[in-house]
């Protein structure tokens, strides 16, 4: 059995766990814990402390694993461990929380430095009333026009599939260009 993995990263409460849950064929092995900080509790009740783990069986010989990184900064020591051997990565950004954009940019830069693998950025929660336009987010995140910034709703399977496919297309394109 061959296995490959992709990493889903992003700031706290960006929607990483939901993203994996939407496409994983197994219940996501989540290591969520109740949040102790009042500030973070205002955003959500539980957070991932080690990693989320989802699976997509491709065929008899191949399985894709999806790993979600813990969003809180104090667990960033896990990032490098999780990034090892990844095929590519997805940076989730909450489109309705511009205060997290800066952190998302920092995470993106760190992961790029860990691994020169293809990546895409998912502008999550595009269905939220106060979600930023993708074009505005591109400016705020200072993303080059070559980097794929995709509108996403992590609870919507079709939307998540699109993001995964775009990442795979990028991986294929890089392989074909000899990267």
């Amino acid at each position, binding site marked *: 059995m061959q296995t490959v993995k992709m990493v889903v990263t992003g700031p706290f409460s960006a929607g990483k766990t939901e993203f994996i849950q939407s496409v994983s064929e197994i219940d996501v092995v989540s290591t969520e814990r109740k949040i102790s900080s009042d500030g973070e509790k205002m955003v959500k009740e539980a957070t991932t402390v080690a990693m989320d783990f989802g699976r997509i069986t491709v065929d008899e010989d191949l399985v894709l694993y999806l790993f979600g990184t813990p969003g809180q900064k104090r667990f960033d020591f896990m990032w490098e461990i999780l990034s090892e051997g990844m*095929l590519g990565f997805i940076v989730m950004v909450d489109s309705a929380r511009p205060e997290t954009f800066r952190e998302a940019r920092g995470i993106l830069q760190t992961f790029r430095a860990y691994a*020169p693998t293809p990546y895409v950025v998912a502008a999550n929660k595009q269905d939220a009333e106060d979600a930023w336009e993708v074009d505005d987010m591109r400016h705020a995140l200072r993303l080059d026009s070559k980097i794929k910034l995709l509108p996403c709703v992590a609870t919507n399977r079709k939307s998540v599939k699109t993001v995964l496919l775009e990442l795979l297309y990028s991986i294929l394109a890089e392989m074909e260009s000899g990267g």
Partner: protein
Amino acid sequence: MALRGNLRDFTITQLLNLINLAHKTGTLIVDGPNETAQVAFREGKLAYAAIGQEDNSLATILHKGSKLTANQYLAIKQRSDHVSDKELGLLLINAGYVSQEDILASLQQYFIDITRRLFTWVEGFFRFENDMLPPEDRINIRLDLENLIIEGSRQLREWEQLQDEIPSLEMALKFTDRPGANLRNINLSVEEWRVVSYITPKNTISQIAKATKMNELEIRRIVYGLLQAGLVEIVRPEGAPLPMTSNMFPTQDKEEQKSLVNRLIKRIRSM
């Protein structure tokens, strides 16, 4: 219990707050990455500060504050070896060179500047010596700490933001491939140029900081500025182990790898 610890756990701002609230008298000694600073307090107010081997004599402080001309400064330096700051201050006031307000304002500014520099120290050890007072021959001031604490809190927030932007100093920098950008036409400060001169994917940010004798906050500030201007990008240091590329795929055969990605695409499309 002695007031001592690590700046990582207890910041300068928090220390000032504690000294202010407890109306402490004594000297805070901070061993930073490159030098040691001593800041003295009387009943919770800033009284005196000194840093490293820096010349903090009254004549030098007044000269730096443009209260003494170069000639006056030289004359004093040559002839006042055995005169204390307090005596010198009186002589200068009596001679009509400076006023008492000039002296106090210059000293206040100098001590504030030292304390501000401490805000940038995020590494180091501190201890508060209750019985240690400023040298007797030095002029003391009495400055409320509230404004400094507010300023320090702002800087702390800046530090936290910079940590978000640049989470690790073990990464390297490289100039972005921007065809239109010409570094010569960009106005950089001396410090920025010093950093720029070390930018290569071989040097980590922490190595650049060491070479340019900058602390974590200073190097982060400059790197952040360069990132914001789109001049540089963060990359993995050249020569660092690359565990991820070697085992991304279960096979090393390029065609098999492509086939594997195509199978993944097909599977996800069909979901």
